[in-house]
């Protein structure tokens, strides 16, 4: 449908004026968002944006390079703890601390990438999973990091301004998110991105064509971990309080889920997945207050299940979404979008 006539058309950032227009609309909407909506929704937007950063980074690893990671909560934790520690102990400014924490996460990602050179499938899954669990355990044992009690975030001062409401924080998170997403999209269009895809599709063939597998695989892990680290640093200031239990295996699974539900191997897909699932995650935490369904669920719980466990319905809903998406639309939300677009573009035929 969309034919590329030369190389530059393939790599350009915006392929048509229509896309520039919609991108401008999106930016304008994001700028006006905190003035239109209530404070709670600004908090939701921050939460979603942070998930978008992680999932876009994770997608570079899972969707583009074809490696699986069940340990991203570990990098997320490194970013969160690193940022707070560098701010409160080394008295670095926020952005510098965030960058350093992200780089530390990236270095750990590089280290995890080394064994990953030889592993695939379930072996890689268990190695990354073990990595994530180990990080949480280690953090929980170090006194400097607050141990099991957790850490409080210091005051957030960026460029001389104190950001202490969600609304002010929004204007820090959203530009960073847009920047990182654009960077990820550009990365996939360059030599590096093509090397990632080549490794995913046929690593041996890629190697014979001169792609340095050692370099690009570890780089995919490092970049992806950097994204998770930066997002973790921001997350620490959304919650203002972090403890090791937050960064559980469940969190890693949620990140992977968001990427897969959105659609692997695209940039827009994971964004859609992150928005949908993190919004559902927040909404379903108080499921009984949802109109109509809530009352019915309460009755149902009283007579057949239990009221204390009612919040666990969100697991069931997530599970059903996952299973159905994988069964009927393996390309995820992005696949649905592509199919719809194709259908309308060629409509009468």
């Amino acid at each position: 449908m969309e034919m590329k006539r030369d190389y530059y058309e393939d790599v350009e950032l915006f392929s048509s004026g229509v896309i520039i227009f919609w991108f401008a609309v999106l930016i304008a909407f994001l700028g006006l968002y905190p003035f239109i909506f209530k404070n709670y929704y600004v908090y939701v937007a921050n939460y979603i944006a942070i998930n978008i950063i992680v999932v876009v980074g994770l997608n570079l690893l899972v969707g583009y390079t074809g490696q699986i990671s069940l340990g991203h909560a570990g990098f997320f934790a490194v970013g969160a703890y690193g940022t707070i520690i560098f701010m409160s102990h080394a008295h670095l400014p926020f952005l510098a601390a965030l960058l350093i924490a992200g780089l530390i996460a990236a270095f750990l990602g590089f280290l995890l990438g080394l064994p990953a050179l030889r592993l695939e499938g379930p072996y890689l899954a268990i190695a990354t999973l073990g990595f994530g669990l180990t990080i949480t355990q280690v953090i929980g044992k170090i006194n400097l990091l607050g141990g099991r009690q957790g850490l409080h975030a210091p005051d957030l001062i960026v460029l001389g301004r104190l950001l202490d409401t969600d609304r002010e924080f929004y204007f820090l998170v959203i530009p960073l998110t847009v920047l990182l997403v654009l960077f990820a999209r550009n990365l996939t269009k360059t030599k590096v991105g093509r090397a990632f895809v080549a490794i995913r599709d046929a690593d041996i063939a890629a190697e014979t064509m001169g792609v340095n597998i050692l370099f690009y695989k570890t780089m995919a892990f490092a970049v992806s971990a950097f994204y998770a680290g930066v997002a973790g640093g921001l997350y620490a200031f959304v919650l203002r309080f972090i403890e090791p239990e937050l960064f559980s295996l469940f969190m890693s699974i949620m990140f992977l889920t968001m990427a897969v539900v959105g659609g692997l191997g695209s940039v827009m897909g994971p964004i859609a997945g992150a928005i949908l699932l993190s919004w559902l995650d927040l909404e379903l935490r108080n499921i009984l207050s949802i109109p109509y369904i809530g009352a019915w669920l309460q009755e149902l719980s009283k007579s057949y299940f239990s009221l204390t466990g009612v919040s666990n319905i969100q697991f069931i809903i997530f599970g059903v979404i996952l299973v159905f998406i994988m069964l009927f639309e393996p390309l995820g939300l992005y696949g649905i979008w592509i199919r719809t677009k194709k259908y309308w573009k060629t409509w009468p035929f």
Partner: protein
Amino acid sequence: MIDFLQMMVSGIAVGSSYALMGLGMVLIYKASEVPNFAQGEMALLPVFIAYMIIHSYGLPIYAAFFGALLFALILGCCLEFLVLRRAKEPNILGLIIITIGLEMILIGIVSWKFGADQRTMPFPISSYASIIIGQIYISTLDLLTLIVALVLMIALFVFFRFSKLGIAMKATQQNENAARLMGIRTNRVKMITWGISAMVGTVAGLLIAPTIMEPYMMWDPLLKGFAGAVVGGMTSLPGAVFGAYIVGIIEHLFGGYVSIEFKSVVAFVVIVLVLCIKPSGLFARHYVKKV
């Protein structure tokens, strides 16, 4: 020396429940080529069903256990038949996500019904009683776990060696197309494999339940069993058992001699090291990809 032997014995006892979970995972991995993250919850639901049978209907414990095993068989078969088999163009990541989805559904149902409270499963043997051999303590429950695990492993071995269905399963796992050409209904064989795997898991669950019973009780055995199976090579049943015992023993030795705090993660570190040296585990034939 006594300390060392004591740790070995405790490690082997814990390793037995890991081994059962690992066996279940390997059975499914060989049949459907998916690391089954729902393995733990496929055991969790039957265990809570047994609890419900005992408490709500007042049936004897053995009847409840039998009911749980039967339920596990049906549950495993249903999951394969209704969900896994329906996957379009399955790739490994997609299948992993499906099993994670199933895991969430099952754990959601259990914790919706029972909340997060700690419960106690009635069991014929007290979990506090222990016997002393020489100077080594072993709780009777651990001993029972060990014996049941060994009996089950022998039963599985006999099943795969001598029964028609077992041989059909082995054939399906080795080469599905050839098996189908030989007249084996591979789909049905896979379904039954899932059922048997769920039963093996449920046995582990029932043996864990007297000491700890809450919705997250199967996570740790599942991960350790998975880790053990990966060390053993993921495609070898004896390998999975061996790997799971290794994990159990390393855990206890590390906990006893080095640090009790990092006991639960040391297994994963060892596994990463093992995998660095032998990427397909200790017992699997190294798989060479053809281009």
